C-alpha cells in the first residue's frame, strides 16, 4: 500500500507540466541521439549533462531518464531503416527489422518496435516500482564490509560479462581502479599519482572518464563510417501500424522478454545489448517459424525491442537502491546526482522521496510519451538520419569538451579527455572491454574507503569481510561470476577437441 501511495506521489511530480515538458524534450533528444549511428544513450546523456546543472535533482534526473528511454526507442529506427544500429542494444533489431523494411513492411516494423518498447518499458517500470524500495531496505543493513564486497561483486560480474576475453576485462578493471586512486587520499591526506599537477589533487572525475570513452572514443571510432559514407533511409511511409496477425505473433514474445530484459538490465555490466540478444535467441528457440528468423519475422523484432527497453529501466535498480550504477548511462545519471549533492543509494528513498518516486513515475510517463512521439512522428524523426555524420561528429566533440569544462572548469581535464578518447580506440582495437574500466573508475574510490573503514572498525581483522550472511552471499556471487565463465570456457574447449579428434 505504501508503494502505491509513494507511486501516486511520484505521479504527482512527474505529471506536472514542467516535468512533462522535460520528459518530452529529453525523449525527443534521446530518440534523435539514439537514431544516429555511433551515438548511444550514454553519449547522449553525457554530452547533455552540463545542461542539467542549473536544474534541480528531480528535473535533472527526469530529463536524463527521457533521453535514456528515448535513445532506446530511437536506436532501432536506424536498425530498421538503414541496417545500422544506433547503439549496441539496437543490434538485434537489424536481424529482422531491416529485412521487414526491405520487404516493404517498414511501417509495421517501426510500429511494433515502438509498441514493444512501450509494453516492455511499462512492465519493467512496474517491476521497478515493486523492487526498488525492498532492495534499498536490504541495502540499509550493509556495513562498510558489505559495501566493499558489493562493489567487488559488481566489478567481477562486469568483468565476467566482458565480451570475449575475461583476462582483458580484469586489465580494464585495473586501469579503472588506478584512475580512481588519483588525487588526495581522503583518509590519510596523502597525494597519490598527481605528478605535481595541482588540478589532479581532486582526482579524475569519473564523468570525464565516461565522456572521454563514450563521446570522444566513439567519434574517433566512427571515422570509419565517414569514409564508408552514410546510407539513405526511407522517409515516406503509409500508416505506421500493425495488423491483428502481427499483434497475435508479437504479444507473447513482448510479454516474455520484458521481465528477462529487466533482470539482465539490473545486473551490473550486462545491459541492453545482452538482454536483447538473449531474448532474440530465446524467441528463436521457442518459435514455430524458426526459418523466418533473420528474414523479417515480426516476433524477432518485437522480443529484443521489449527486452532492451526493460533492461534500460532494470539498470536503474542498482543505481537508485544500492548506489552502484548498472550501466554507462546510469553512471552518468549517478554523477549528476552526486554533483547536485544527492547520494544515490538506500537512503535516497527516505531522504529524497520526491526525486526517487518522481523518477520511477516518470518512467511510466516517458514510455507513453515516447510511444506517442515515435509512432505518428516516425516519418519526421527519421529525416534526421539525413544529417551527415561529418557535420555531426565535430559537434559531438565540441559538446564533449564544453560538458567537461562545465564539470570541473579546468582545461587539464581536456587533456585527460583526449588521452581517454585515444585509449578508447586502442582498447577497441585490442578487444579490451571498456565497461569494467568505467565501473571501476566510478566505484573504485568508494570501494577503497569501504575496505579501509571495515578494516579499521574490525581492528585490522580481515575475517570481518566474511562474517555476515550478506557478506558470505556476496562472496559466493563474486566467486561464481569468476568461476562459471572459466568452467564454461574449459568445457567448450573440450567439446571442440573431441569434435576435431574423433
Amino acid at each position, binding site marked *: 500500500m505504501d508503494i502505491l501511495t509513494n507511486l501516486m506521489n511520484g505521479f504527482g511530480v512527474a505529471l506536472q507540466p514542467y516535468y512533462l515538458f522535460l520528459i518530452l524534450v529529453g525523449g525527443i533528444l534521446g530518440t534523435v541521439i539514439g537514431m544516429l549511428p555511433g551515438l548511444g544513450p550514454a553519449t547522449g546523456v553525457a554530452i547533455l549533462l552540463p545542461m542539467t546543472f542549473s536544474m534541480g535533482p528531480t528535473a535533472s534526473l527526469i530529463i536524463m531518464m527521457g533521453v535514456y528511454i528515448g535513445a532506446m526507442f530511437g536506436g532501432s529506427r536506424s536498425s530498421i531503416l538503414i541496417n545500422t544500429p544506433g547503439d549496441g542494444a539496437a543490434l538485434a533489431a537489424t536481424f529482422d527489422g531491416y529485412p521487414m523494411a526491405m520487404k516493404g513492411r517498414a511501417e509495421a516494423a517501426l510500429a511494433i518496435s515502438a509498441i514493444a518498447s512501450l509494453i516492455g518499458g511499462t512492465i519493467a517500470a512496474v517491476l521497478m516500482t515493486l523492487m526498488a524500495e525492498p532492495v534499498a531496505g536490504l541495502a540499509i543493513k550493509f556495513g562498510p564490509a558489505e559495501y566493499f564486497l558489493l562493489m567487488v561483486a559488481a566489478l567481477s560480474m562486469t568483468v565476467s560479462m566482458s565480451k570475449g576475453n575475461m583476462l582483458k576485462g580484469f586489465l580494464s578493471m*585495473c586501469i579503472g581502479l588506478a584512475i580512481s586512486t588519483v588525487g588526495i587520499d581522503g*583518509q*590519510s591526506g596523502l597525494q597519490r599519482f598527481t605528478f605535481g599537477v595541482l588540478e589532479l589533487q581532486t582526482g579524475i572525475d569519473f564523468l570525464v572518464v565516461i565522456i572521454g570513452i563514450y563521446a570522444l572514443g566513439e567519434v574517433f571510432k566512427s571515422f570509419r563510417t565517414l*569514409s564508408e559514407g552514410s546510407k539513405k533511409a526511407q522517409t515516406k511511409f503509409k500508416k505506421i501500424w500493425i495488423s491483428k496477425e502481427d499483434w497475435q505473433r508479437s504479444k507473447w514474445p513482448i510479454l516474455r522478454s520484458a521481465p528477462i530484459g529487466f533482470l539482465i538490465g539490473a545486473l551490473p555490466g550486462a545491459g541492453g545489448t545482452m538482454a536483447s540478444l538473449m531474448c532474440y535467441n530465446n524467441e528463436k528457440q521457442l518459435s514455430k517459424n524458426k526459418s523466418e528468423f533473420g528474414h523479417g519475422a515480426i516476433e524477432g523484432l518485437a522480443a529484443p525491442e521489449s527486452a532492451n527497453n526493460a533492461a534500460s529501466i532494470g539498470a536503474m535498480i542498482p543505481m537508485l537502491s544500492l548506489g552502484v550504477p548498472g550501466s554507462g548511462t546510469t553512471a552518468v545519471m549517478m554523477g549528476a546526482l552526486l554533483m547536485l549533492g544527492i547520494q544515490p543509494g538506500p537512503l535516497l528513498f527516505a531522504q529524497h522521496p520526491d526525486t526517487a518516486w518522481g523518477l520511477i513515475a516518470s518512467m511510466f510517463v516517458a514510455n507513453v510519451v515516447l510511444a506517442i512521439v515515435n509512432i505518428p512522428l516516425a516519418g519526421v524523426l527519421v529525416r534526421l538520419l539525413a544529417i551527415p555524420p561529418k557535420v555531426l561528429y565535430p559537434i559531438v566533440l565540441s559538446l564533449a569538451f564544453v560538458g567537461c569544462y562545465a564539470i570541473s572548469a579546468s582545461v587539464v581535464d581536456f587533456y585527460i579527455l583526449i588521452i581517454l578518447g585515444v585509449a578508447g580506440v586502442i582498447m577497441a582495437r585490442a578487444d579490451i572491454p571498456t565497461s569494467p574500466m568505467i565501473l571501476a573508475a566510478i566505484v573504485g574510490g568508494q570501494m577503497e574507503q569501504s575496505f579501509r573503514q571495515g578494516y579499521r572498525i574490525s581492528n585490522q581483522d580481515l575475517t570481518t569481510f566474511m562474517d555476515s550472511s550478506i557478506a558470505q552471499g556476496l562472496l559466493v556471487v563474486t566467486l561464481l561470476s569468476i568461476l562459471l565463465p572459466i568452467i564454461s570456457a574449459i568445457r567448450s574447449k573440450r567439446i571442440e577437441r573431441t569434435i576435431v579428434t574423433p
Partner: protein
Amino acid sequence: MSNIKYNWDGLTGLFSIVFGLAYGGYAYSLPQPMFGNPLEAIFLPLAVSAISIFIGVLLILSSGFTPSMLAIKALLNESSQRKSDRRKIAITCVICVLYAMLFEHAGYVISTFLFMFSMLTVTCGKTFWKKSALISIIFAGGIFITFNEMLSVNLPPFPFFN
C-alpha cells in the same frame, strides 16, 4: 604458422605487466602518511599492481607473441582508407590539444570557432569552407549564449572584453 589467427593478447599482456610494475613501483615509493597504518593508502594500488602483473603473465602464456606480431603486420598492411582514418584520428587529436591550449586564453567563442572550423575541414574537406565557417560561428555563439546566459555555466569570455 598459417593457422594462427592474429590478436593483440601478447602485447596486451606485456602492457599489463609494464603498467603493473610502473604503477606498483610508484605507489610503493609514495611518502608514508603522517598518521594511521602506513600501508593503508597503498593497499589498493599494490593489489591493482599485483593483479595487472598476474593478468599480463596469463595473457602472454595463453597466447604468446606470434599472434601479436601478425596483428602488427596486418595493421601495417591495412588498406589506404583505414590508414587515412587513423591519420584523421591523429589530426583530430592534435586539433583537440591545440583547442585545450587556446581555450582559456582566446575565450570560448574564438577557440571553439577555430576548433569547429578545423574539425569540419578535416571531416568535410576544404571545399566546404563557407558552410563550415557558418556552422562553426553559429555553434560557438549559440553554445556560449546558452551556457552563460541560460544555464549559468561560465565559459571563458572574449579575451579583449575582460
